[in-house]
């Protein structure tokens, strides 16, 4: 890992946000599950995307992350999510919170699709990884 990569990994982002589509998905998930706010969905979405090994890079149709702004300190108060991300993906050489911003949106949208498809109906379904579960094609 280079010096510049290390600098990039410590990051300098203060705020992160959902994309517009992800924000709508997050609101639906808050309605459906006992999550207190979209902030919870942000963390769950990122964790879900990691577990489902969704790409860390932004897809072409990702769009602008211009939904409500969340302070990084609110999303990841102790830096736990960031540390886990880096431990899982030591190859990352950019700001981890940019990747978390990507993951929370793609994860929330993916989760929302699976809920709509009736594949995830409860927290139990969500926390139990599917044997062969993979992302639903858009």
């Amino acid at each position: 890992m280079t010096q510049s990569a290390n600098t990039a990994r410590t990051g300098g982002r203060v705020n992160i946000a959902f994309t517009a589509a992800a924000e709508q998905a997050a609101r639906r998930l808050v309605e459906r599950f006992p999550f207190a706010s979209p902030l919870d969905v942000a963390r769950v979405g990122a964790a879900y995307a990691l577990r489902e090994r969704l790409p860390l890079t932004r897809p072409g149709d990702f769009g602008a992350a211009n939904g409500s702004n969340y302070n990084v300190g609110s999303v990841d108060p102790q830096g736990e999510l960031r540390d886990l991300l880096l431990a899982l993906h030591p190859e990352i050489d950019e700001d981890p919170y940019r990747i978390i911003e990507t993951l929370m949106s793609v994860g929330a949208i993916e989760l929302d699709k699976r809920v709509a498809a009736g594949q995830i109906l409860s927290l139990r379904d969500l926390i139990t990884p599917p044997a062969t579960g993979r992302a639903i094609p858009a």
Partner: protein
Amino acid sequence: MRLVALEVTDFGPYRGTQQFSFASEPGVELVWGENGRGKTSFLNAVRWALFGVVLGRASSKIDLSTVGNRDDTDSSTVRSFKATLTFTHGGHTYKLTRAYREETDWTGAGAFRERKSLVKDGDVLGPEDRDRELANLLPEQIARFFLFDAELLQEYEQLLTPGSDAGEKLKASIERVLGLPILTQARDDVAAHLAIARTEQAKAAQKDKTTLNLGNDLQLASDEAENARKNVATLAELLEDLQNDVNEMEKQLTSSNRFRGLLATRNAKREEVERLAARSKDRNDELDAAAGDVWRVVLAPLVAQELASIETQTDAVNHRLVAALAARQAARAVSTGVCPTCQQAVGADLAQTLHDHGSAEDADTVQAELTTLRARRDVLRKLRADGNRIARLEEDANQARVDLSDAEGQLRDLQAQMDEAPAGTAEAIGALIDTLGQKNVSLANTRRRLKDSREDLQRKDQAVVALSEKLRRLGTASTGAEDRKVKLLVELQALLAAAVAEFRDRLRDRIEDEASKVFRALSAERDYDRLRINDNYGLTILYADGTEVLNRSSGYEHVVALSLIAALQRCSPMAGPIITDSPFGRLDATHKKHVLQALPQITDQVVLLVHDDELDRQSAVNELNTHLVGEHHLRRVSGRHTEIEAGAHP
């Protein structure tokens, strides 16, 4: 008394005028009728003719405006009805008619009234003669020993509870049927004369200077005793009124049992819904609190996988590190010609061999790689997630929601059922329960006051007796005549009190003996030996060794009650027919058989109102044999119309 015929007109289900002729020979008659045909109404027709009352469940009086036969569904219309009972007694023939009919007064307004008439040997008796004859023939207070049903039999258990109001009334009825009032009335009459005599004694004493003070004291004490007596009488009357009110209210509450049950269930369900709602909220709160950890649980499988991979990588890197460190030592041996470990010289051949096997990997680089792996492992190991707890909390919360939803549905159903009742029913019942509570408090207070007043009266009576006796002992001429009168009445009162006690004791012994004889004939349990009577005429079953049978069955309650009734019939100066409604309901086959065999021995005229399920006809015919003197049946014409017909069911 022997019943000859009953004629009913529009009484209960008996539409029009219908005749029933009782058998003229001694024995048992059976009247067969299914439930709802009019067996209780038949008993009530006889009761109405004799006493002017119609009884419903729990011996409550039925409103007369509801008794008349009706052929429509308009319950607001009051109908006339009538019953005429023909019977013989003491060589005379009586025809007693009692009617409930509408009469118009001088203003033309109509009102329903009870009218009765008594014809004796063809002569219509005037009101006074009629009432006197009726009071002597069969006083209402003893009707229970002649006209009864299973519910009335059950009340005899009250005799075993000392001091119970029902038991006291029953005891009074028993003593009445046994003729005790002749003595007790005589005793009470003498007591009244004695009180007058003492007043006269006081007045006479007041006329003499030597006895003036004593006379005044006696006068005052007598006045105080009289006031105390009036107080006791007033309280006794109040107590009876309160007891009647309480009975009436309890009956009203009994009649609203279904609604009250519904109300209680609704209230309990409402509380359950509140409890379940609180539980559901608690479970949701717990789940909400735990939901913040869901992301960790989601990530946990990936972290576990990665940890396993890191462990494998760490092993491999460790091996590489060992090799790199060994290579570094070898290189040093080759370059210095001395082994850095054992300090021995390294020859050219060995140096060549070490050089050939040297590793190209740098130990520091491998060490750094290992450090990175360990750092990642340490981060991943910090993740704490309990998926089972979250799943369990979610299940608990879901279950709590389902339970709440079910209970809310049931509550809505109950509320809908309650809404069908007339408006204000719940409030009326609530008010009735409140009033009943207050009446019960008054009843308890009045009972206590009556007890205190009786004790007060006793003390005051004793004071009067002491003063009167003191005056008599002075033996002054002025009070001489009154003193002698008082002395005579005191002795007469003592004699009558002793006679009452003696008569009671003898009666109790006789009833115990007679009831035991009947009981032995009726009982199917060979170990039950006899009955023991208490001061209230309550009967306890005894084993042969004299120990009590505890917790006897309700079937045996009836056997004991029938034994008592039979004993009373045998010991009473009044003999009469027995008409009983569904008396076999609680008896098993053996006891039914025994009762059938014993009935003809109890009295000359027995009428049993029974239904097929209660009594098998063939068994009844066999057991009664020649004692069966008549059969009748109640034929259904419609739900509101029954005809009395001769013979058993066709």
